[in-house]
């Protein structure tokens, strides 16, 4: 008769498992990647020079030069003032003649509302710092997000992110995110 095998002690199992656990605890990074989401325009073959006719008052021109200075609508501007200016441009509450036109549009939940035809145009120099560029983009996105949030609060008494999908779509139609990134011209 063979001898009975002695039982394997399981007391140290917990210690081994703990060691593995601590290893994974330490190496795990829980951070989710996040960033500014944008859509690039479709590639078009060069030299068509299609001048899309957009009236001067409908464009909000933001230029960033190589020293990271901002020129907004031909005015030297600090980056902290950019958000307010962009909001004023997109909202145009007083129907100012120098700010963009509006056209009536049928939007669900709201009925017929005046929707702005404004476009934000952002161009930069080849030597602009990427950090500045992102800061400017961030301010422009923030301006539109704030407008949407204000509208959501006044209409639905909720913040924009808490709304139903259809309601968000409706608000997006009233305040579209139209930020166009012009291709930088080569310095002469």
């Amino acid at each position, binding site marked *: 008769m063979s001898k009975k095998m002695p039982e394997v002690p399981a007391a140290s199992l917990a210690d081994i*498992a703990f060691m593995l*656990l601590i290893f*994974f605890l330490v190496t795990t990074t829980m951070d989710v*990647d*996040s*960033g*500014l*989401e944008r*859509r690039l325009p479709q590639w078009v073959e060069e030299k068509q020079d299609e001048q899309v006719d957009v009236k001067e008052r409908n464009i909000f021109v933001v230029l960033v030069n190589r020293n990271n200075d901002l020129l907004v609508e031909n005015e030297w501007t600090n980056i902290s003032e950019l958000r307010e200016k962009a909001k004023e441009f997109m909202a145009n509450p007083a129907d100012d003649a120098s700010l963009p036109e509006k056209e009536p549009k049928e939007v669900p939940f709201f009925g017929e509302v005046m929707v702005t035809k404004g476009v934000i145009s952002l161009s930069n120099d080849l030597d602009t710092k990427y950090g500045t560029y992102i800061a400017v*983009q961030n301010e422009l996105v923030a301006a539109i997000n704030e407008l949407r949030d204000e509208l959501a609060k006044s209409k639905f008494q909720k913040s924009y992110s808490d709304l139903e999908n259809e309601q968000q779509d409706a608000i997006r139609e009233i305040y579209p995110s139209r930020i166009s990134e012009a291709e930088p011209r080569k310095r002469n």
Partner: protein
Amino acid sequence: MSKFKKSSNKELPPISTASLPDIVFMLLFFFMVTTTMREVTLNVRVKLPTATELSKLEKKSLVSFIYIGEPLRQYQSKFGIAPRIQLADQFASVSDISNFIIAEREARDEAERPRMIVSLKVDENTKMGIVTEVKQELRKAAALHINYSSRKPAQ
């Protein structure tokens, strides 16, 4: 005689630790499953810019990364200190991007391809020139959905 008189001679039995390994294993499996190991080793230094209007990259499997920044110290003798592009594990030039995008697209499921996102991890001190070239290449490769990776500003 009180009803709650302590039985003085009885000792508390020791708590059984037999189920401790099971509990620990459960935690261990949780962390093993949720952990994502860093897939690429960075050859360039990337300090992300800060932004407040962030949106999260929910599905990791849809995202391809492009890194731009100064090469790390040990590569500087070979590649210089000018910002360089890193695709997957190696340095690349602007013209490699379209092939990279095609390869990344091939690696995805058919259903996922239209929803592919390219995340640009660019150092905040990089000049826009190289970023713009990369963007033009992405447009040519029809990878239009991009994400400028940035971090929350510290309080």
